[in-house]
């Protein structure tokens, strides 16, 4: 109960808050055209539709800290940056500006604290420290939302490559299931309850 009391405020709105805090959620026109482009971009190699190579490297570095690669693949292996590229290409100019200025702020902090131009060139510990400082910003909320959206949306939107995101959480996208779905209903059927 103590745990429930502590967490109930934060809990139910978490999904909604993630979207609200993000400047970009609920605002993408024509996502399906973006997914068509995603396929073409992949076929053509590593071209990005809207991100510069430097921006892509930075977003990839941030994504890798949000869902790191360790004993299992993370956001980098799932190609989160391709999803982000697609979504940004369909965002409003105002939103693109907000992201650019957010990234510029992060890079300014990178330079001030560590004397390097690019966030991607910092160590993981340094990166985590900078991201922790920016946790309350719209920029961080937006990037976190986009990385998670990249990881768990249909692969045709550019991320979740080889369904790596779904594998991470144990989601199998099958069209049909039959009992038993898991341990408890299996046990229930076995015991004839």
């Amino acid at each position, binding site marked *: 109960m103590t745990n429930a009391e502590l*967490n109930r405020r934060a809990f139910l709105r978490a999904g909604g808050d993630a979207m609200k805090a993000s400047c970009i959620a609920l605002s993408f026109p024509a996502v399906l055209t973006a997914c068509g482009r995603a396929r073409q971009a992949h076929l053509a190699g590593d071209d990005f539709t809207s991100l510069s190579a430097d921006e892509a490297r930075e977003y990839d570095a941030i994504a890798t*800290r949000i869902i790191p690669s360790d004993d299992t693949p993370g956001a980098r292996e799932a190609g989160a940056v391709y999803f982000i590229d697609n979504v940004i290409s369909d965002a409003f100019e105002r939103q693109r500006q907000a992201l650019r200025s957010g990234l510029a702020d992060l890079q300014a902090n990178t330079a001030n604290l560590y004397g390097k131009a690019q966030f991607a060139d910092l160590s993981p510990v340094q990166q985590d420290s900078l991201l922790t400082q920016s946790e309350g910003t719209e920029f961080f909320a937006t990037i976190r939302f986009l990385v998670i959206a990249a990881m768990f949306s249909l692969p045709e939107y550019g991320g979740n490559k080889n369904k790596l995101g779904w594998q991470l959480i144990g989601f199998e996208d099958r069209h049909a299931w039959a009992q038993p779905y898991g341990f408890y209903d299996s046990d229930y059927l076995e015991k004839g309850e």
Partner: protein
Amino acid sequence: MAQQQSSVTYPTREAVDFVIVGSGAAGGVIAKELSVAGFSVVVLEQGPHLKANDFKHDEWSYDYNGGLIWGSKQGHPQTFRKAANQPTRPAEAALGYAHNVGGSSVHFSGNFWRFRPIDFKEASVRGSISGTNFADWPITYEELEPYYTKVDWEVGVSGLQGPWDPPRTRPYPCEPMPIKGSDVLLERAGKKLGLNPYPAPVAILSQPHNGRPACIHCGFCNGFGCEVNAKSSSMATMIPLALASGYCELRTGCTVSRVSTRDDGKADEVVYWNAEGEEHAQRAKAVVLCANGAETPRLLLLSASAQHPQGLGNSSGFVGQNLMFNGYTSVVGLFPEPVNAYKSIPATRVIHDYYELDKTLGFYGGGGIDGRHYARGTPLNSALMSGMFGGPKWGADYKRSLEQEFTHTAAFDGHTTSLPLATNTVTLDPTLKDKWGRPALRCTYMDHPDDLATMKFFFDKTNELMEAAGAIRQAGSYPENGQEGNVHLLGTCRMGNDPANSVVDKYHRSHDVPNLFICDGSSLVTSGRGQPTMTIMALAFRAADHMIQSARRGEI
């Protein structure tokens, strides 16, 4: 098997027997009943006619890009405020509904509880509640029961008569759905606490019925359209029959701007923009509004005229008032073994022991509890909420939460009553406009203190159940500061015998406009316990029955 195209085209300048605005839970049923009875019917639906093979397991589109529920990007902005003296803010789909043929019956969870005898006469039994419009219905459960049974058999419902269920004249047509792990945990916990869990009634087929196939348990029900037509939406069940009758023309992409009246005060045509944006007007002998509890009152308010200065059918001032959402609570527990609640339908067991809370508690309320996945089984929503037991929201430890929480959790949800209040309303926003230039929907809503107390009660009970279920950790929430939107849109054109405090009579006919009928969530006098669609469909069958009889007697 199913007819999907209109086989008849009516000229707009000749009056059809009925024009129906909206093709959802109510509109689909009424369109089918009237057209099969041989009346000429035009259905105006603002959304597209999506069918089973149009739907995908595509959370990004449906939940984040307005795939079914339109928002400001599609030109349908809304605003919300807690009270008339509180600030108004833009709100995406605070009054949420699906924009497609079949309406929200396409993307709903399929939970299909009947209301019970008490729901129709609770104000008499409990006594009135000061400061509210809590009232008895003008009809009884017994009057509605034959139509509940019609829904069971014609629309298709799976279930098993439970210990607290109201009397029924026929058994369910389909056996209950197979139990899920989340509901095994709920059932065992409920029994441990001396409660009576039993199979949840759902508008999802457990076996083939009326030419439609059984559910394949893909898990994408709530928020999605069924890809095999096993969910008993009006799109899958009623619209094909209406179209096959040869008397129903379904016009999609048509947004209604107003209902026009003649000098004698009767409705004579419905004005709308078609998919190309051209204005048309369909003449009709009678008009039936089934646009849902938000759009129906909005349309009546937009149809104000010299004869109807407060809005059409609004001499009572009750159009748009008494908005009821139903309350909800959710508690999530972490379990040692895989639950996999993301598979199959949302809920397979329900606990209805708290349908009517004891009066000695000091507040009014009641509800039901079911077992679910905490985020409808959807990967992205689930991931956004992960770390719910106090863990971080990014980084290596967040990743550990992701690995556990999607598969190893069960949620116990409460679904509860809302009281009808004059201050909870659907009105026209004074400044914001939609893409057609119409005033946007403005929602004003604050849960009554009794509604919040009821949610607290269910939150505590579901926490107790979760402990009894053996959860390793638990977390949860309910909207303790009041809800700021919902998908249950109820009570805004309530039915009643007294024209001074209701909008339609017991047969859904406007007290003010004799050839105007209104039937959808707006007709409800009280909120029920959280699953209104079954009752909306039963009311629609009953309303259509009386429309047919009146029309045959020449009384429309």
